[in-house]
């Protein structure tokens, strides 16, 4: 199962974090800092799977944003790598075009889309269309 998903900027600032297992807020910051430094330190064409304690870190760059997922050792790392692609694809479909600005200003949306796709660390929905439908319906309803 996945433990958390982070989005960081090139300079190492955290822009979005969603935890699937509870970690006390005070210990989140050092963990995030450590993890982000590790992933930022990797070279461009190096392996995207790192180890951090008993989690495997899978990270991926999408433009200027660094997406990091921490998962158990038993998870298929390549699959999670693809999941990141799926998630970003969903965001792209939802916002029309997805850029760093969207990450910054629409954090709650990111949480919602993520929740539609992953619950409790396990993948729930693999189809972008199905994941976005509820959110889009609610958007149209509430904006009326």
């Amino acid at each position, binding site marked *: 199962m996945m433990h958390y998903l982070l989005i960081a900027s090139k300079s190492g600032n955290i822009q979005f974090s969603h935890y699937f297992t509870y970690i006390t*807020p005070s210990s989140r910051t050092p963990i995030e800092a450590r993890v982000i430094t590790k992933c930022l330190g990797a070279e461009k064409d190096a392996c995207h799977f790192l180890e951090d304690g008993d989690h495997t870190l899978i990270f991926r760059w999408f433009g200027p944003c660094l997406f990091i997922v921490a998962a158990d050792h038993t998870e298929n790392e390549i*699959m999670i790598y693809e999941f990141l692609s799926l998630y970003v694809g969903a965001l792209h479909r939802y916002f029309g075009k997805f850029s760093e600005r969207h990450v910054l200003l629409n954090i709650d949306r990111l949480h919602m889309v993520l929740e539609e796709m992953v619950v409790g660390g396990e*993948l729930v929905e693999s189809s972008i269309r199905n994941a976005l439908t509820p959110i889009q319906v609610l958007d149209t309803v509430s904006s009326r």
Partner: protein
Amino acid sequence: MSSIKQVINDAVEKGEAVFELVEISSASMRLSFDQVRQPNPIRLRDLIRQIRSAKTAAEERAVVNRECAYIRLTFREEDSVWRCRNVAKLLYIHMLGYPAHFGQMECLKLIASPRFTDKRIGYLGAMLLLDERQDVHLLITNSLKNDLNSSTQFVQGLALCTLGAIASPEMSRDLAGEVERLLKSSNAYIRKKAAVCALRIICRVPELMEMYLPATRSLLSEKNHGVLITGVTLITEMCRQSPDMLAHFKKIVPNLVRILKNLIMAGYSPEHDVQGVSDPFLQVKILKLLRILGCGDSEASETMNDILAQVATNTESSKNVGNAILYETVLSIMDIKSESGLRVLAINILGRFLLNADKNIRYVALNTLLRVVHADNSAVQRHRSTILECLKDADISIRRRAMELCFALINGNNIRTMMKELLTFLEKAEPEFKASCSSKCVLAAEKYSPNVRWHIDTLLKVVEAAGNHVPDDVVSSTIQLISETRTEQAYAVGELWRHLSIAQMEYQPMIQVATWCIGEFGDLLLSGHADVTVVESELIDIYQKILWSSQCSITTKEYALTSLMKLSARLTHEIGSIQQVVSAFGSHLNIELQQRGIEYSQLFTRHNHMRGPLLERMPPFEGTRAGTEQDKATITNGVDTPLDNESLLNDLTSPNNNAHETSESNALLDLLGGMEPGDSDTIKSTSTSISLTVASTPSVNADILDLLGGLDSGPAASVPTTNMNEAPPTQLPNSSNAAYLLDGLLNNSTPIISSPSSPVTNSAGTIPTSNSIYPLVLQKSSIPGITAYDKNGIRLDMAFELQETLITINLIASNNTGAQVTDFLFQAAVPKVPLRMRIKLSWLANGSPVQDQGEISNFPSALWQ
């Protein structure tokens, strides 16, 4: 303008967090809005902008604090209109790392609100801010229950989502029934979420598993992929947790096979297609479940063989998703009882992965190969050259995996080529690799070296390449090997001299090995047997360099000093300068060196007649080196003898007795019995002259010697592979004068015997050393054995044998913890009288260190009568 303003106001009235407001505002619009002195809290977006525009951390803190204060104020005022927006801002602030606990109650209120947007933010807040350790957590349960029964599927979905994320055991028990009901709902959206919720519930409360069993049956006949995915995940978790469930679910294997087949065969489906593959996520989940179901079960495995072969051959490996599926397939093939053709296919896929340009794929392949290499060694050997290539890869994770894999692949045939590559790797490796790599190299060389000269060469290269990161057992292994093989000694010492003369003073292990050998075999060096021409003065020069170098450690200097002394018996001309050097050390600041300096100087003056025989060549060490016996279990040697003790033990096992007065030897033995730290030094240099007469010595000495003897002729991985640590003899605190620390080695979690030592006799000389592990049989003895220690799951039993004045103690250590124990270290010290033993134990149980010390005083009185 006013109508637009009206729209905005309406939206705002409804209490929306104004996120999704269409950007109708033109610049002027926004400007006019902002210019109005707003009684409404600022939008999240604006807060984010403000925070990001803060130039310093202090400025950001100021903005955040101001906003927090405002939010706290509004919370106190129980304002329900803006609560939603404020909590949203609070969540953002929380993400930045600021404390946000005062928002917890507000989340609760939001959850209880009838408005959907409120609920959404409330549940999100609950998920991020709350955990089950807080009391507020329980209060959500009621809201959750209500929402689970709501008529709107989205509200239900929201509640299920939150429950899935933060379920605590109590909450799970309360709401399990609701979730079970929803699992049977007609709405696929709800079913999907309910399945994941059930998954979390059974993770927290495994007893509730049976409740969900009936519902799972129908989950697999779904059309909806989302429900399928969650259903499969739920069943996987159930099988993982309970073997009964596993047996129960074996019958669904045909269903799974069918679903997988449909996925592969089905044409393009736009909503599930990822890079040309139809729902790879579902495929991977099914493969994982198949793996669990087929593991160890040949019948189930047979049913799966076809589909696995089909997936393996049909999946496109040009895309990453294809590779993900192939990876999962390979894992499944290797774990179930598949037929050999399929296994070969799997390993070939891994071989293809190794050649893939993508580093991730290569890493994954190496990882998997490491897991299967023990089972299918020959198949993996075919890819050996590719793996050797990976040793030179730029990426550190790949290098590390490749290194481990290489060691697993070494066998008698390929040892030369592999070792060559590994040595090149060792030279350039990072320090964290060097230690493990060098010990593994030594082990491998030990097992598979084709001849002795190659072995020595390799060991020397390892010591040289690893620099200062050589673990101590490598140094002693090298020394031992050289001392054992008479034929190669000249060659070895020549090589070492060459290294030493150009060596950097900072690499201690090399200098240690070199000085030891030159000290022992200096005559070979000088007489030209070693193919080098060396003049005595050159030797002395080098020694002086070492002894006065600030880069050499104290241990190295100890080695050098002793070896210089030995040289004084081998050289002819330069004895005077040696004496000078040695006596200079009599005033060294370091106690150890000073002591040696003074005592060695004594050898020149008062005991000059003894010096020659004293410093004769040492006999080969009797003990075994690491790795000779144990192949399967990994042994970690945890011996902590300082240098002098180690050679002391070796000295004692030396079989020879020179014609020496018993008085001398008795005097020495008395010293042995007394075991002052200083004595051990003297004794060390009197290597060959200790006659191991024990007939006339007090029984205590016998005990010590026996313990020493017994330990030394112990099973594999024993004494000679001692660490030449700097650790001083571990004097236990309250046995100040008479405690001499002996070290025994007991390894692993399997009960082993330290082999019974034959009595240390006089003229017979040799102590038959036992190089094999004795079966677990205690010899019958008239003296009752004792349980020396029984705590923390580790038990030490001692059995005694008394023959005249010789006492043999057999020690059996057994691991009753049920967990794996590694790095077991047993240390004992025996003070003079009365017979008791202070012991110190340390081990790693499942990775966590445990230490203990105690005293054994319940030795049977028969022992000292």
